[in-house]
């Protein structure tokens, strides 16, 4: 792995669906350990950007680097093996498996168990202990044997985060982790996200400005497929282009 001061780099990334260009030369360089919130108006391409980074969609042009290594053109599972993991806006779980099995599935690859069919899961002490630890971290240990489809909304969101971080990826992408939650749940959840992403590079897409300021070291503002500002919250708030393009009113409200 080539060394780079950046955990994740997007260089002139473009993505067009047919004739409509959604991402138009997005540029973003995230240092290792930074927590970045990506904000922007609806339709700015935030989710598309996540899908490009994680390999769900191919790029039209440009480069994406993870720890200096190019990952554009790779498949999602290859990118995940290089240490990048994501959560989904709508909970994306293994519905018929128990909470514990969901987490254990998510740790298997990173612990090198691959496709083995000559070892019993019950004997994989490392995977079982890691899964129990993650379960405790996301506070679902009391629900370990419940099928994922029977969880409450907030529990499902917590499991979603748990699956994302279980593999020990160094770069974590969270797509609207608190969407649809009440105020108090959101507060609790921000705390949870802080705890489970200690020492990791974090990118989140968020609409809730409270979450953005509660969680992020830096804010990237995405407007019409371009990153028009990327800086610490105060600087972004003061940025004339940002205020003009989208944010002035929202930021004023939040403070």
């Amino acid at each position, binding site marked *: 792995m080539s060394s780079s001061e950046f955990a994740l780099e997007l260089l002139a990334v473009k993505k067009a669906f047919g004739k409509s260009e959604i991402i138009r030369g997005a540029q973003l360089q995230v240092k290792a350990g930074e927590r970045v919130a990506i904000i922007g108006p609806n339709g700015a391409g935030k989710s598309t950007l996540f899908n490009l980074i994680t390999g769900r969609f191919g790029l039209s042009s440009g480069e994406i680097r993870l720890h200096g290594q190019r990952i554009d053109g790779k498949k999602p*599972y290859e990118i*995940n093996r290089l240490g990048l993991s994501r959560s989904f806006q709508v909970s994306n779980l*293994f519905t018929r498996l128990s909470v514990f099995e969901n987490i254990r*599935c998510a740790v298997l690859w990173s612990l090198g168990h691959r*496709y*083995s069919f000559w070892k*019993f*899961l019950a004997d994989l002490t490392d995977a079982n202990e890691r899964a129990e630890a993650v379960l405790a971290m996301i506070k679902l240990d009391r629900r370990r044997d419940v099928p994922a489809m029977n969880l409450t909304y907030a529990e499902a969101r917590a499991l979603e985060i748990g699956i994302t971080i279980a593999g020990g990826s160094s770069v974590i992408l969270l797509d609207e982790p608190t969407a649809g939650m009440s105020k108090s749940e959101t507060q609790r959840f921000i705390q949870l996200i802080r705890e489970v992403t200690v020492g990791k590079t974090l990118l989140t897409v968020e609409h809730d400005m409270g979450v953005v300021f509660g969680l992020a070291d830096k804010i990237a503002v995405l407007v019409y497929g371009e990153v028009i500002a990327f800086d610490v919250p105060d600087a972004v708030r003061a940025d004339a282009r940002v205020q003009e393009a989208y944010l002035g009113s929202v930021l004023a409200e939040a403070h």
Partner: protein
Amino acid sequence: MNSSRAQSFHFKPLNVGRWLVWGLYAFALIVAPLLWTSSFAQTMLTQIGIGIIACLAYNILLGQGGMLSFGHAVYSGLGSFLAIHTLNLAVSGAWNIPVSLIPLIGGAAGMGVAALLGYVSTKKAGTPFAMITLGLGELVWSMSLMIPEFFGGEGGVSSNRVIGEPFLGFLTFGPQIQVYYLIAAYCFISTAAMFALTRTPLGRMLNAVRDNPERVAFIGYDTQWVRYLAFMISGFFAGVAGGLAALNFEIVTAEVVGAARSGAYLLFTFLGGATFFFGPIIGAVLMVVGLVLLSELTQAWLLYLGLIFLFMVMYAPGGIASLIMMNLRVAAYGKLRQLTGSYLALAGTALTMLVGGGAMIEMLYHMQLNAAMGPEVEFIGVTLNTAGVDAWFGSVMVMLVGLGLFEMSRRQYVREWGDVQAEIEKEIKRREAL
């Protein structure tokens, strides 16, 4: 809470319940031919043994991997052909291989063909996968007509399993009972191996791919590779079943790769219950009983089979296994007795309905197929006259009355079932709160 958690994932070398279940399974396989000693019963038992392996292999795809295959007879069938050709090589003395190992040749063949064809089909999931398996099934079926040198044309390929010196002095595999025990041994080992698979990382990831293939890609696994590996393993066991069938019948005809056989695997695996590991075992028993016994009893057996399938899909999509498990849960909370009345009512009214409907079906079949034998047909000890109005009127009435009463008792049952479930939920909550 904590102590139970610590125990739950530690390996338990002496799990009494599991030993008991597997012990009973082995016992049943050993004792069955001693209880049913007629040659007809033993033929059926051997076929059940083969069917269990085939249906369990099929369920690796259907129940555990969420892959709906319409062409699984290709792998068991080609396993059969390779096995019978190998047996013929052994007969001619060209290759000295023990008869008892020939099913493994079938398994290798099934796996090899699955490796080849599965490479294409497992690139897709869902409907495209199903369509590809259907296409590949037709392809192999048409090849069976085109290449008579391998598939033996209309007459098939026949052989003789009694060759060489008796193994251990007495095992010639000539008598049916010896073949049965060979099949039973393969059946037990295959079942254990396939159960073990569900407890491994690959087996669990196969469940994950079934539930949510998209997410699997984002936790580092290649979904196609998971499906492909599972497909090859399934092909192996299907091939073993095919190899055993070749030994058992000593003849293999092209129909073993046909769509009807593939359809039977799907139908009976589903009927038995794809969501539980043991479901296909029940399905295999039903398959042999259904195909052999029912076809002896009535000409309209395919129609009855279709009706049963229809009702199961509508009212019990989890198959018989899930019906058993749901009722065991009720029994575990000591509430099964509350439902006995309803069950008796359901059974009685269903039987009435069946008698009326069955009489009409039998009369209809008689009129269409056996009209030359006169207007009278025998049905459960009663002689019905298809030319008269009485028999028709009577059976329509019986069926309608049965139907009406069945619907009433069904509604009653649904209500009671709901009550019982609510009571159980309450009980669980109460215990959790303790």
